[in-house]
C-alpha cells in the first residue's frame, strides 16, 4: 500500500468540487474499493478531523503536565491530590505502595535543618490513628517534601455531617485523642489539629495527617504577617500559636477541644466560645470548655487527663442532664 498515493489522491481530490470526488476516485483507484472508500471518508470528514486534532493538541499540552514531572527521588508522581496553605500534595507510588507526597511551599536552610531534626522522631510514630511518616527529601528546586502513608478516607468535616449520634462522635474523637496521646508519649506534637487533618477510613478508623509538620513550619524567625499566612487555621489554632509562641502538647489539647466542639455542634468554635445550652450534656461541654481555655494553665495539662474525663462519660458514669 502506498500512502504516497493516498497523499496524492487526497490532495488532487481536495482541489475538486465535492460532486466530482466519487467519479474521480472510482477512476483513479482502479477498482480498489477500500482505497476509494477510505479517501472518500477522509475527504468528507476532513473538517471534523482537523478540529478533533486541535482539541487533541490542547489536551496533549495538559497531559504533559502530568506526564513529565513524574518522579521525586524514588517516587513516581501519579497525580495531584490537592493544595493547601503549606504546599501541594501528590499521590505517588514507590517501593510497591501508594503514598502521599507533600511538597512544602517554603524553603530555606532553617526549615531544612528542622526537617532533618524532626524526621527521626516522626518516623518513630507507628500508630493506627496516625498516617505514617515514611520519608522525606528535596525537590530539584530545593523544596523539602514529606512522604506519608496515603490514606483513603473522608475528612472529618464530611464525616461529622452524615447524621452520627453523639456516642459515635465521641468514640471517634476518643480514637483521635488516643493517637495524639501516643504521639505526645513520643515527644511529637501535632500543632495543627483540625477537621481537614483527620481522615476517617471506610472501617471507621480516624487517621491523623501531617503530624509534626506544624512544628517544622513554626518559624520563629519570621513572625507577623508571614507567619499568619502559614498553615494555621484561626478557628483551631491555640491562642499562644496565634501569638507566635512555640507549640507544646497543650497546643494539641486546645486543638482537640476545637475538634470536639465541632464534632458536637457541627460549627467552628470562635475564640474560647462555650457550647450553647442544648448542644451537649454538661459533662461533655465541660470537657470542651476546659480544653479550650485561653490560659494554658487552666487547660487539661495532658491529653491523657482529657481522655480520662471522656472515658468516664463513655462508661455512662457521667451522663448529666443537658447543660
Amino acid at each position, binding site marked *: 500500500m502506498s*500512502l504516497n498515493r493516498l497523499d496524492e489522491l487526497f490532495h488532487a481530490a481536495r482541489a475538486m468540487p465535492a460532486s466530482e470526488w466519487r467519479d474521480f476516485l472510482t477512476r483513479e483507484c482502479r477498482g480498489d474499493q477500500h*482505497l476509494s472508500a477510505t479517501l472518500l471518508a477522509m475527504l468528507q470528514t476532513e473538517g471534523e*478531523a482537523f478540529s478533533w486534532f486541535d482539541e487533541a493538541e490542547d489536551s496533549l499540552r495538559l497531559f504533559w503536565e502530568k506526564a*513529565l514531572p513524574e518522579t521525586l527521588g524514588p517516587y513516581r508522581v501519579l497525580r495531584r491530590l490537592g493544595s493547601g496553605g503549606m504546599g501541594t500534595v501528590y499521590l505517588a507510588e514507590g517501593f510497591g505502595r501508594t503514598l502521599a507526597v507533600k511538597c512544602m511551599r517554603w524553603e530555606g536552610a532553617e526549615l531544612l535543618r528542622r526537617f532533618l531534626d524532626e524526621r527521626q522522631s516522626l518516623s518513630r510514630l507507628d500508630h493506627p490513628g496516625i498516617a505514617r511518616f515514611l520519608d522525606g527529601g528535596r525537590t530539584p528546586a530545593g523544596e523539602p517534601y514529606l512522604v506519608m502513608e496515603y490514606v483513603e478516607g473522608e475528612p472529618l468535616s464530611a464525616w461529622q455531617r452524615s447524621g452520627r449520634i453523639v456516642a459515635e462522635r465521641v468514640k471517634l474523637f476518643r480514637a483521635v485523642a488516643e493517637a495524639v496521646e501516643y504521639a505526645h508519649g513520643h515527644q511529637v506534637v501535632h500543632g495543627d489539629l483540625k477537621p481537614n487533618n483527620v481522615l476517617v477510613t471506610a472501617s471507621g478508623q480516624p487517621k491523623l495527617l501531617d503530624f509534626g509538620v506544624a512544628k517544622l513550619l513554626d518559624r520563629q524567625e519570621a513572625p507577623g504577617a508571614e507567619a499568619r499566612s502559614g498553615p494555621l487555621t484561626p478557628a483551631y489554632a491555640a491562642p499562644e500559636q496565634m501569638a507566635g509562641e512555640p507549640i507544646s502538647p497543650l497546643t494539641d489539647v486546645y486543638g482537640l477541644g476545637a475538634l470536639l466542639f465541632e464534632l458536637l455542634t457541627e460549627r467552628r468554635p470562635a475564640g474560647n466560645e462555650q457550647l450553647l445550652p442544648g448542644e451537649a450534656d454538661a459533662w461533655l461541654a465541660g470537657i470542651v470548655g476546659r480544653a479550650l481555655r485561653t490560659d494554658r494553665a487552666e487547660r487539661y495539662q495532658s491529653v491523657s487527663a482529657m481522655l480520662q474525663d471522656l472515658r468516664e462519660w463513655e462508661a455512662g458514669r457521667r451522663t448529666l442532664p443537658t447543660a
Partner: protein
Amino acid sequence: MRTAPENLTTLLAAFAQGDRSAAEEALPLVYEELRRIARRRRWQWGGQEAPHTTSLVHEVYLHLSAGHSEPWASRAHFFHFASVAMRNVLVDHAKHIQRVKRGGGLQRVELNEQARISEQRSVELLALDEALSTLGAQEPRLLQIVECRFFGGLTVEETAEALAISPASVKRGWDTARAWLFHHLRGGHSDESQSVG
C-alpha cells in the same frame, strides 16, 4: 548530563542517517533531560500550567548544547529526535495510567474529575499512537510529520527543517495524516494486508 552530548552527537548523527534504532538508544538521555526541565518548571509554576511542548524541545536543545562551541548536533535533527522522545514519554505515561487503573491501585479511590479526564486522555492517546504506528509502517514520512507537529509541537517551518522537506509538503502531509488518522480512529478499515496502492 555533562557527558551526554558526546554520546548524543554520535547517536544523532546515526539518527540523521535514518537509523531509528539510534534514536531508541539515545532516548533515555533526552528523556531524562525532558523530565528534568519539565519538573523544574512544574515546581516553579506550582503545577498550575502545562509547558508548551515547542518551548520544551527548544529548552532541551539549548541545555544540551550549552557550553559546546562547535555545534554538536544539527538543531533540525534534534527537533525531530526530541519529538520522538516526547511521543515515548507521553505514551509511557498513558500506559502507566492504564496499568494503575487495571492494577486496582486507584480502584477504591473515587476518581475525581481531573483523574477521569486524564484517564480518558490516556485512552485516546494510546489509540492515536497505535493508529500512528499503522500509518508509519506504510508511510514513514507521514509518521515523522505527525511526530514533529503533534508530539513535538513543532511549527510547519521547524518540521520542514527537521525533516529536510518543503513547508508545503509538511502542510500537505499533515492534512493527509490527520484525515487518515481521524478516519482510522473512527473505525475506518485499515487492513494492512489489503493492497490499496
